[in-house]
């Protein structure tokens, strides 16, 4: 079995420990570099993403696999790259979260998983994220995108507050901002000065790919 096949099996079976161990041993034995392993992981996630698009597998398969891969990158491959002073290639860095006073996470987590599977570096801040937390994280990791979710009409306004806070700090042009969530709309996004809006996770990927180019 090739390295890629073995890794693919571990990802598909959600064997996080197995994948960590296997990658670590490959690095230790110098049979492969962290960059090479990241490339393999990229192609595995592409394969899984394609299967998902074709409805051969479903959301849990996709998110579960993305979770396994993310842990292995964070705990094994990233440290290995940083140890030799390198930086990994991504399509862009996205800070994502559900805004203050809102605990809905499923849609936002789907977007995070999709972004990750599509080659973005994702910082998922969870739920009830304040403007302060969004901006601090974006600054800390030199993010390209800030993504905000809101599932309540009551919490929508906090999306606006994050953008106002960015303007206040003179950081608005530094980041592209995308918003989403059931009560939001394209009009709402325009009204609060966001760069993009998406209705679901698949739309979100397309929208982010589009704004990151501009």
């Amino acid at each position, binding site marked *: 079995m090739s390295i890629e096949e073995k890794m693919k099996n571990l990802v598909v079976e959600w064997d996080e420990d197995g994948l960590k161990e296997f990658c670590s041993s490959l690095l230790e034995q110098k049979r492969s570099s962290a960059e090479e392993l990241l490339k393999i992981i990229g192609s595995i996630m592409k394969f899984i993403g394609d299967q998902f698009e074709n*409805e051969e597998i*479903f959301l*849990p*398969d996709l998110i*579960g696999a993305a979770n396994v891969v993310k842990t292995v990158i964070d705990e094994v491959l990233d440290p290995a790259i940083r140890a030799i002073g390198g930086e990994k290639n991504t399509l862009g860095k996205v800070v994502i979260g559900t805004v203050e006073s809102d605990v809905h*996470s*499923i849609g936002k987590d789907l977007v995070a998983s999709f972004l990750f599977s599509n080659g973005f570096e994702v910082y998922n801040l969870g739920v009830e994220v304040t403007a302060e937390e969004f901006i601090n994280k974006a600054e800390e990791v030199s993010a390209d995108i800030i993504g905000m979710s809101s599932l309540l009409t009551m919490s929508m306004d906090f999306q606006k507050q994050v953008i106002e806070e960015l303007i206040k700090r003179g950081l608005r042009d530094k980041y592209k901002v995308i918003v989403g969530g059931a009560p939001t709309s394209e009009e709402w996004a325009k009204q609060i000065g966001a760069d993009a809006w998406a*209705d679901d996770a698949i*739309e979100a990927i397309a929208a982010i790919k589009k704004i990151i180019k501009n």
Partner: protein
Amino acid sequence: MKLKKIDVFSQNELEEIHSASLELLASVGMKVDSDKARAILQQNGAEVNEDTHFVKFSESLIKEKLKSVPSSFTLHGPDGKFKATVDVNHTEFATIGTPVKIYDPDHDKGVRKTVMADTINQIRIVDSLENVICSHIDVWPNDIKYTAIHAHCIYQWVKNTKKPYGLGCLGRLASQDMMNLASLIVGGDEELIKHPRLVGFMNPTSPLHLPQLMTNGFEVFTKYKQPTIIAPEALAGTSSPVTLAGLITQTNAEILGSVALSQIYNPGAPIFYGTVSHITDMRTGNSAMGSVEMGLITAGIAQLARYYNIPSRGPGCGSDSKVLDLQNGYERMQTLMLAAQAGINYITCAGTYEATLVEALELLVIDDDLIGMVKRAIEGITVTEDTIGINVIKKVATTERKGVNFLAEKHTKDHMKNELYFPKLSDRNRRATWYKKGAKDIIIRASEKVTEILQSHQVNDLPKELEEKLLNYIKEVEARTFDEYKKAEDLMVDSITLPDGIEIKDEKK
């Protein structure tokens, strides 16, 4: 646990109906047109009146004959590889209807007359469906000579599907053709009898009448042990009492009398205890197949079939609508769900509407999806330590990270495919995504599916020799005159009206 089946009768009521049906059979009996059928019934203990042609069945005769009826049988596709068992415990789904028109949005009336090309398309679609196990001669090929339709259809069956096929027992000549052709296809009578390929259809005419053409064909089907549906189509208020209990009592007698005849013809011959009875709309005199009462009648018949331990057949997907609208949707699902919940073992009529007179291939693929949902519904809820999932609840509820959910849990991955039905055609997208995908309604999506299936369908390759034999046989059938046909059926009439209102008459007259 599996869902409890709907019982519309208490045990006492069931016995009451059973007794009343037996009383009808003993005191009035059934009018049997065929001299031969009356003779064999008489030889086997029935009381025959040669003036009125009524045949009375004693309680002991019915009870004796019920003993040899099988409670399960297996249907096979032409090459024998596809198998589907019909028994008293579970539910399978099929087509059946008599569409003489087909949905055609390009036609100004929205429908047009059906031709052989439509018949073939229907067989091909059923071949590809996950939940529909058998197509019957549903779509009537109006462009084929009526006395040769059965032969052409069998040929198209073997060319176009891996699944079994159903045909009406329309006379001994046609039924024998069906057996001869099927026998050529499967390699002999022995194989055909051992592994049945065809489903017969025998309609007693309500009230209490067995027409000659039907018993002629029924004899052939039972002889070859091809499972045959006995399904009266009584209409409450016109061909039976308006009361549903009265209709069920009367049709029960019709079925039991026919069952007795089947077992006299050939003990152990597999049959379906069936119904396609519904009601008369008292405002117009029209039959109403999408009526909620049809569901109740079907449920009553299912319960009686269980009482006799015979696999049941009943209609689902029934609708009286003339268009593919909400009425069409709610009536077909309502009749389908009731039939399934009542425990009918072979639910039919997928793809039809307007009381089965019209076919829509679009509805056929939608029905496949509806059946998927209904199958899931009657599976009920599985309760085990694992499905209760107390550990995963504890794990997710106590995770410190906010907003963690069950999606990425192994428990979800392991169970989702068994727990959840994934509809193929229902749209569950968010509105923006639905717009992006063309804002298509269910009929458009179904129509695209139909095109996709038909474009990718592969015709079965037949050995050249078999192909020739079949085509030669069709030629022989085509060459028959109407007089030959009448003679074979002992008929002395100028035209024959089939149970579905289709009239067969001499083209020259």
